[in-house]
């Protein structure tokens, strides 16, 4: 393999945020994909179902995310064809993705993504919620709340302060929307069109896109050039 080979991402999705709540895992992101600094695509679904028990959210190079979805499709299809009462849970899928990402990194041919893997699976001790992340260099971990990209800097501090065990769905949505709003205001590549998805033992739901209410009515925005004569 070529030791000098490097990828550059072309079409990229930005932050994904996720957290565990009482009934399962909730995940959210916007539906935009940028081409450099151009906001090229505005209706991109970056959260998908995987098998019966998991959701995957991807930020970074969108074509690589699509490739990963294809790998997962093959994986879950083969698993399903066994029809033997066993199925791949979120932990197994996370472990598999970690192997894929890390191996690609070692070949200097990374899949340029940060992936969030969340799900619920019935285990011997009851329903087990799972939430983890793996990125393009193969770093992976499990946590109660995850964010990628700018979310690491803006959403994680909020989640660390306000996340609690056993939040209801409504509380979880409120907290996620708070994070999404901060990202909308502060992350240049975000757009005001979000999707929330949840997964419980009953199954997964990816809600249709919607917008958040923003407030730009601050006094300082009214006459922006007041303090700088001559500027535009």
């Amino acid at each position, binding site marked *: 393999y070529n030791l000098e080979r490097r990828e550059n991402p072309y079409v990229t999705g930005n932050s994904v945020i996720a957290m565990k709540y009482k009934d399962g895992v909730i995940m959210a992101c916007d539906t935009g994909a940028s081409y450099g600094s151009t906001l090229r695509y505005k209706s991109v679904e970056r959260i998908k179902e995987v098998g019966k028990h998991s959701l995957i959210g991807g930020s970074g190079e969108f074509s690589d995310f699509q490739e990963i979805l294809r790998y997962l499709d093959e994986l879950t299809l083969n698993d399903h064809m066994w029809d033997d*009462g*066993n199925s791949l849970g979120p*932990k197994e899928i996370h*472990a598999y993705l970690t192997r894929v990402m890390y191996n690609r990194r070692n070949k200097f041919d990374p899949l340029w993504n940060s992936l969030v893997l969340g799900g619920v699976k019935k285990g011997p001790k009851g329903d087990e919620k799972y939430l983890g992340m793996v990125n393009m260099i193969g770093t992976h971990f499990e946590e109660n709340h995850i964010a990628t990209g700018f979310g690491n800097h803006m959403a994680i501090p909020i989640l660390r302060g306000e996340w609690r065990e056993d939040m209801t769905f409504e509380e979880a949505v409120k907290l996620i929307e708070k994070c999404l709003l901060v990202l909308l205001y502060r992350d240049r590549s975000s757009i005001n069109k979000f999707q929330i998805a949840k997964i419980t033992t009953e199954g997964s739901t990816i809600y249709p896109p919607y917008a958040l209410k923003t407030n730009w009515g601050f006094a300082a925005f009214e006459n922006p050039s007041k303090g700088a004569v001559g500027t535009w």
Partner: protein
Amino acid sequence: RQQKEENSTPEPYSCYGHAPLAHLASSPDRRRGESRGGRRPRMFRNQYDTDVTTWSPQGRLFQVEYAMEAVKQGSACVGLRSATHAVLAAANKSANELSSHQRKVFRVADHAGVALAGLTADGRVLSRFLRNECINHAFVYDAPLPVSRLALRLADKAQVCTQRSWKRPYGVGLLVAGLDESGAHLYYNCPSGNYFEYQAFAIGSRSQAAKTYLERRFEKFNAYTPDELIKDALSAIKETLQGEKLTSSNCTIAIVGRKEDGTVEPFSMIDSKRIQEIIDSMEAADEAPAADVPAESSSMQEDRGDAPAARDAPAADEPAAPDAPAPMDI
């Protein structure tokens, strides 16, 4: 030949019709052979049994069937399972008093193990393969390989050897026992590449005695506690010893399962001290497992020898408390 376990009747292993293959005597090939003056009744089977890749006119692969014979020559192994636990037991035979006995039970992963009968060298190699499969799966998926998929990989490997002219079938049958998220499982993989799931099974020499013992009881196994499974496994092995005394030195027992609190009890051999304790308690209680035997005590099997017949007859009188020392009737 040295690789094989001790046979009760060592015989020249030739294709020209010897006693262990008597069950094939009724094949049409024999008739054909007889037309040649009947000197060697099964001579014509010889035509189709040189290669594993040669079919007989009746659609049989004789090399595969001979491989399954090798399994029947090995010393007995028994497997049984409940909904949550699976137990494997093996009768230990050593070639002579000076040597140690052959290892017949192998741990393949924390959640699975095998007991084998037949060419133990083949069994060792297959155990290594199974361990490798489990390790690879655990490395990628961070989860135990489901037992059905383990059994399938073993079966596919065995099948390859039935379809290559430069190979021979593995001469070992494996009882694969394990635990996964759908419960405890027991599979039997044979040299032909076939495999089935079982509630209980026995392989090896004199395994029919054990099978008969298990056939009478298997419907209750799903609800058995681990201790009950172990006891029945020991009793089944005892059947195959045919009169010889069951002690902790001539049997091996292993168990795997999910405990009541949900944690896994990993596959492990039970140490000989505990086995001896269980054997002693079984003998004290006359090892009659409560009231499910009375109706069947009349269906006493002909392959039982001597004392065992008397052992079961009084079962109808026994109270349903196998652990309570009961007065010996014999």
